[in-house]
C-alpha cells in the first residue's frame, strides 16, 4: 500500500491477491486493497479494467479464482452469495435492478424484512407491519423518494429508479455499500442529487464506488484506486492519483478523454 492513512480508521473490507479468470482471460489479477469504515473509496479505470468484476466478487456474486476477501478480518470468499448481504455488505447494480411491478415502498420493504425477520411466516399479513413500513419509508426519504413511496417502480423516471436502487441497499442497513455506477445514464441534475446523497452517506458507511463520472469521483473519494486491464495500477488520495503519470498514460493509451 502506498497510501498514508490515519491509524484510527478501521479496515472494513480487504482483498488479498484476488484473482478472477474466465478461462484464459484474466478479468482480475492479484488485487490487494483495503476499504476503510466511514470512507468513500473510488475505483476508476477504462472499460474492461475489471471494476465491475471486483464489485461482483466483493458482493459474493462471483467466486474468486484465487485470493481472499476479508470482512472485519474474517475470510468470507467461500460463503454463499446471500450471506454477504447478511453480513452487511449491500450492493447496487449498474443496470437498474429493482422490482418493477411493486411500489417503491414495497421494493424497500422486501429489503427491510430480511433483517426484521418473519420471512417464513406464512400467516401474518405483510400489510400490517408498521415498523417495517416506517424503516422502508425512512430509506426512501433518505434518497429523496419520499413522495413516490406508493408509486409502482416501473412508473417512476430512470433517475428515480437509480435512487430507489440505493434506497433498497440502505434499507438492508448495511455497513458496506458497493455502488456500481450509480450515476450511469443520468442527467446532470440527477447526478448532482446522487452526489449530494453520497456526501451525506460517506461518513456513515464504508462505500466502494465504481463510477465513470470522473468529476464526481474526484469530488467524493477519500481514497482512489485506478485499475487497468484487470491489474491494480495505483491507490492513493485524489491528488496523488491525479498527478501520477502512469494514470494519464493508461487513460491516454485507451483513448478516453478524462483528464
Amino acid at each position, binding site marked *: 500500500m502506498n497510501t498514508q492513512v490515519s491509524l484510527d480508521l478501521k479496515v472494513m473490507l480487504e482483498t488479498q491477491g484476488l484473482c478472477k479468470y474466465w478461462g484464459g482471460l484474466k478479468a482480475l489479477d492479484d488485487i490487494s486493497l483495503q476499504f476503510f469504515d466511514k470512507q468513500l473509496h473510488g475505483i476508476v479505470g477504462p472499460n474492461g479494467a475489471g471494476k465491475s468484476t471486483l464489485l461482483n466478487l466483493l458482493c459474493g456474486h462471483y467466486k474468486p479464482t484465487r485470493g481472499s476477501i476479508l470482512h472485519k478480518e474474517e475470510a468470507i470468499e467461500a460463503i454463499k452469495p446471500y450471506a454477504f448481504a447478511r453480513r452487511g455488505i*449491500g450492493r447496487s447494480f449498474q443496470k437498474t435492478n429493482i422490482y418493477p411491478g411493486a411500489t417503491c415502498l414495497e421494493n424497500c420493504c422486501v429489503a427491510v424484512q430480511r433483517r426484521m425477520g418473519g420471512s417464513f411466516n*406464512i400467516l*401474518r399479513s405483510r400489510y400490517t407491519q408498521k415498523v417495517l413500513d416506517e424503516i422502508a419509508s425512512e430509506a426512501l426519504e433518505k434518497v429523496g423518494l419520499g413522495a413516490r413511496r406508493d408509486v409502482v417502480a416501473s412508473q417512476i423516471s430512470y433517475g428515480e429508479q437509480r435512487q430507489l436502487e440505493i434506497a433498497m441497499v440502505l434499507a438492508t442497513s448495511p455497513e458496506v455499500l458497493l455502488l456500481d455506477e450509480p450515476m450511469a445514464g443520468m442527467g446532470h441534475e440527477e447526478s448532482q442529487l446522487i452526489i449530494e446523497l453520497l456526501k451525506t452517506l460517506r461518513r456513515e458507511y464504508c462505500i466502494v464506488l465504481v463510477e465513470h463520472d470522473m468529476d464526481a469521483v474526484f469530488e467524493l473519494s477519500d481514497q482512489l484506486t485506478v485499475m487497468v486491464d484487470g491489474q491494480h495500477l495505483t491507490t492513493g488520495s485524489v491528488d496523488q492519483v491525479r498527478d501520477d503519470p502512469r494514470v494519464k498514460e493508461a487513460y491516454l493509451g485507451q483513448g478516453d478523454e478524462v483528464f
Partner: protein
Amino acid sequence: MLFNKRTERIFFWVFFPLALLMPLFLAENTFFVSKLTSIMIFALFVMSLDYLVGRCGLITLGHAMFYGLGGYLFWMIAPEYEAVNFWVYTFYICMIAAAVALIIGFLVLRTSGIYMIMITLAFAQMAFYFFSDSIEFGGTDGLFIYVKPETSIFGLSFFDLDNPTHFYYLCLLSLFNTLIFFRILIRSRFGRVVDAIHENPGRTTALGYNIFVFRLMSYVIASALGAYAGYLFTLQYGFVNPSMLAWTTSGSALVMSILGGMGSIYGAILGTFVYEGLHYVLEHLTEHWMLFMGALIIAMVMVFKNGIAGSMEKLLEKRT
C-alpha cells in the same frame, strides 16, 4: 383485505354461493353432481400448480406425480377393510407427500428454467414407471379402495363419503379452504419474498435472501396440496391408477391454469371449469376432440395470454 382485486371478490361471491346451492337443483342428477365434484377436485390440483408456476415462477411438468402419490399413499397406509378417519389421513398424506417433495425439490430446484421443466417431467415419469411396473401396486390397472373413510371430528360426523352430495360438499369445502389458504399465503410476509423472487431472483439474493429455501418451501406446500387433491380423487372413484401420474395430467393442469389466468389462484377454478366443460362438449361432438383442444391451446398462447382472470380484470378493474 384478503382479496385485493374487485374481480376476485366478485368471483368469490358468485362462485361459492352458486356452488353451494347447485346440488339443490340437481338433487336427482347424481351424474352431474359427481362430474362437478371431480372438476372441483382437479381445480384444487390446478390451484396448487398455479401457485407454483404463476406465483413462484417454478415451471414444473411433473406435478401429477404428487396427484398420483396422494392416491397411492392412501392405499399404502390405510388398512384395507377398515374405515379410517378422513381428517387424520388427510394430515398423514399431506405430511408424507411434503416429505417426498422435500427430497425431490432439493434435487429439482438446484436447476431452473427449461432444465427444471425437463427434470420435473423426468422425475414424474420415474414415479409413473415405479407404480405402473410393480405388481404390488397393481401395475397399469391400479388398485381399488374398498372402504371409504369416515369423517367424524370429536364424535360428530358431517359428511358421509358414500353419498355423492355429501362428498360434493366436502370437496367444495376443500376448494374453499385451499383458496383462502393460498390467499393468506400470498398476502403473508413469506408471500412478499416469494413475489420478490419471482420478479427478480438476482436482486433478492443480493438483498440477503436464500432463495433456494423459499422455493423449496413453496414446492413442498404446493406438492402436499396436490397430493391432497389426488387423495380426494381416489376417494371419489374408489381406485387409484398410474394414469393419475401421467405427464398428460400435468400438461392439462398447466393448460387449465393458463386458461384461467396464471398466478391468480382463483383463475385455476375458472380455467378448470372452462377446460373441462369444453372437453365434455367436444368429446360428445367428435371423437377427434383432441384436434380442437390442441388448436384451442395454440390459439390461447397466441392471443389469450392473460387467461380468463386477466381478461376479466382488464374489464372490471379501475385504471390507476
